[in-house]
């Protein structure tokens, strides 16, 4: 009996393996011959990745799981370094014409695609034209681009319909990677992960196994800093808690993104883990529905601003991944910030006064007002909502907090504007003017439905000027309007913390790399065990 059982169990294992392996396990894509050469015993760097890339065209659609891979495989004309500054990439230098409507990019010479073909200005034109013609993700950001011309193989001239200070920043940010025309033309533009990504970046694509890994190899022909490690492997681990354990256990060298906020303090105290905290141009803020009672009244919005204590919200709900917001624009663009129009100081008495001014009287429970507050489930949103609810209760505003799944929230708040107060976050870079879609009258992300023509004109004007000295007064004026009208109420700045094991040197937030690489570029990384 016992022997039979043992036999059966081993048979079952056998059947299982056969069933599994004949299915998807060994199904890899790409040239496997290349990946064999990575076995030479050189260093492998493993980075965590929270999900499968959806496509291997970084410009066709928004894909946050491809973005870290794309930064290592592809190059842009210019790129953002880890200090959010614009630095050269494929373009070694560039200049604007006098009225700011034309940018001439001088490209690095002798750059080769990963398949050995020459990179030329024609590829740049192909990429930018394709983004425009195929409605790639960056099409809205690059709206002012009128024409791309290529006087010679190493020069690209972009003509703008109007001066646009935000243009270069957007070109350096997302979904603007330069692609080879001989690979991505025609049907291949939007073909998911069926295409082998060919770029000019520091690493070459080697293989992708669904839900397991994406492997890249060093590109010895890279025109910039050639990577130190032989192989760069993105290990796909969707559960954040599992990723935390895999990182602690050394199966992942670089966490790749921010860990859950509950783990940050432990990681910071661990002598074997390093990582810098950096404030990002990404913030959490409240939005108010201007087309509905009670938030169409200024006094009510002001009352909320006085009733909330950002210090307490951040310390209770955002341990380690938040910094208290004090201004109406992101402090990353400190040249544009003025202390004259700060977020109101916490003052609960003032809040009650304002509510009375607005004509509200307390009911028998001491409540002036009942409001609903819709937030979507993500990160510390729910915790923040709970603290806000509690703070508002103390000034007599009774909050019904709805924590919704993202898709539901999106339909209710964003599409149908069926809400009173809500909360939004997300990236507001790469330029201070990138806040425009969130506050301008026709902005695609203007959830408050706020309309102010003076503000619209200032936003347009601010984007057309070039130097920071010229632009600063405009953005200070914008802060005045935001402080007066309160279409948004900023709560906190997002603090990015990307932990690495201490044997990893040269990660994107280290001194040697921070000026030269983006948030997820690993060509400066050395493993020193």
């Amino acid at each position, binding site marked *: 009996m016992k022997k039979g*059982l043992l036999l059966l169990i081993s048979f*079952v*294992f056998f*059947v*299982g393996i056969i*069933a*599994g*392996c*004949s*299915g*998807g*396990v060994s*199904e890899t894509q790409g040239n496997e011959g290349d*990946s064999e050469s*990575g*076995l030479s015993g050189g260093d492998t760097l*493993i980075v965590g990745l929270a*999900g499968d890339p*959806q496509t291997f065209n970084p410009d066709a*659609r*928004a894909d*946050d799981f491809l973005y870290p891979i794309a930064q290592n495989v592809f190059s842009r004309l210019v790129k953002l370094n880890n200090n959010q500054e614009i630095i050269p990439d494929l373009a070694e230098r560039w200049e604007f014409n006098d009225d700011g409507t034309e940018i001439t990019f001088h490209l690095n010479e002798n750059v080769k695609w990963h398949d050995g073909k020459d990179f030329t200005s024609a590829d740049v034109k192909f990429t930018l034209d394709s983004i425009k013609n*195929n*409605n*790639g993700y960056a099409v*809205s950001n690059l709206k002012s681009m009128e024409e791309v011309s290529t006087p010679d193989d190493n020069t690209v001239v972009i003509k703008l319909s109007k001066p646009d200070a935000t243009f270069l920043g957007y070109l350096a940010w*997302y979904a603007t990677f330069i692609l080879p025309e001989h690979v991505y033309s025609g049907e291949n533009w*939007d*073909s*998911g*992960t*069926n295409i082998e990504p060919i770029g000019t970046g520091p690493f070459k694509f080697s293989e992708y196994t*669904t*839900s*397991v*890994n994406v492997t890249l190899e060093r590109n010895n022909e890279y025109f910039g800093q050639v990577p130190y490690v032989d192989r760069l*492997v993105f*290990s*796909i*681990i*969707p*559960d954040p*808690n*599992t990723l935390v*354990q*895999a990182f602690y*256990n050394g*199966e992942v060298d670089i966490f790749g993104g921010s860990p859950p906020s509950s783990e940050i303090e432990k990681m910071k105290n661990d002598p074997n883990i390093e990582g810098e905290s950096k404030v990002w141009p990404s913030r959490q803020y409240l939005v108010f529905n201007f087309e509905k009672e009670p938030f169409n009244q200024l006094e009510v919005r002001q009352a909320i601003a006085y009733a909330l204590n950002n210090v307490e919200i951040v310390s209770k709900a955002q341990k380690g991944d938040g910094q208290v917001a004090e201004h109406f624009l992101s402090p990353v663009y400190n040249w544009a910030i003025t202390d004259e129009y700060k977020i109101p100081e916490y003052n609960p008495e003032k809040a009650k006064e304002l509510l009375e001014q607005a004509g509200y009287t307390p009911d028998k429970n001491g409540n002036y007002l009942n409001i609903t507050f819709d937030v979507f489930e993500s990160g510390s949103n729910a915790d923040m909502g709970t603290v806000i609810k509690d703070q508002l209760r103390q000034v007599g505003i009774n909050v019904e907090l709805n924590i919704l*799944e*993202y*898709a539901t929230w*999106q*339909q209710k708040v*964003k599409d149908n504007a069926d809400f009173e107060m809500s909360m*939004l*976050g*997300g*990236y507001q870079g790469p330029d201070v003017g990138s806040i425009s*879609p969130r506050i301008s009258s026709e902005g695609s*992300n203007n959830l408050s439905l706020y309309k102010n023509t003076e503000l619209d004109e200032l936003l347009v004007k601010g984007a057309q000027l070039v130097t920071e000295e010229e632009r600063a007064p405009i953005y200070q004026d914008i802060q005045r309007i935001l402080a007066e009208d309160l279409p948004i109420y900023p709560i906190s700045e997002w603090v990015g913390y990307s932990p690495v094991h201490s044997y990893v040197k040269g990660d994107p937030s280290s001194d040697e790399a921070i000026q030269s690489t983006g948030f997820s570029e690993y060509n400066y990384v050395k493993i020193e065990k």
Partner: protein
Amino acid sequence: MGSFIIRRSFTGILIIFVAIFLNFMLIQLAPGDPISILSGQDSPSPEMEEALREKYGLNDSVGVQFLTYLRTLAGGDLGESILSGRPVSEMIGERIGPTLMLTLTTAILALLIGTLLGIYCARRPGSKLDNLLSGLSYLFDSMPSFWLGMMFILLFASWLGIFPTSGMVDLRANHSGIAYYIDVLHHMFLPATTLTLLSIPYFFRITRSSVIQVMSEDFVTTLRATGMSEGRIFNKYVLKNSILPTITVFGITIAYMITGVAIIEIVFSWPGMGSFMLNAISRRDYPLLMGIYLVLSISVAVTMIVVDVLYAFIDPRIRYSK
């Protein structure tokens, strides 16, 4: 027997069609829109959204969309994922292997271990081992799967360090040949053990109670009165009569095998249908979800037919009564 199978197959096909219709409508009823989700909250791109909506026919009415879907389906095409633009059948094909490997192994292990323990305890009801195993079965039955999985990771991977935390292969080692299969087994141990421990209680309890019930029936008493040995009574008469419920439970386990272990797969980063399906749900990737549900409903229908036929084969009363 032949007409029985035909009748059952006909019902199965009908069920699949009803499932397709219901799934389509339910998915469309859920709030949210795949294209806006794709565009994100940072800096949504209205031009890209409009182009993609047009491409996937999301501006059409639900009725038109359903007919379009049926037409592509009739051509043997499951459509294209909205999020990635890849063929749905290909995406499902990539992930179904690892899931089957994990679930087939654990289902069969749980069936064997649970049933054998159940029989053993049923023949000695009230013994120390019976009490212990019954207690344990309730304990494991009530444990949340993600919690048990996480505990195993903490215990065996983080603390003892004898098993890998997650995934299916060692990405540093890059094994090939027989070493690769051993590596996969090594990675499969923790998720498989978690799943097996969680499914043993079903088989254990259903077998135990079924055997005890059959043992108390009159014909067993009669057989005992004839002086037949306990072993012979059990093997020849009791086992066959008491195994039917176990087959049902096993059938249900097999039917939901493709999607039923999503949570465990996510906890252990097992590259199967789990995270894939939950991602498709939360991002409202309609064609991909329809594809997954279609595979699921076919799998349920087919397994149910097989179980029914098996039943009829084992129990002649079912075969002849209809």
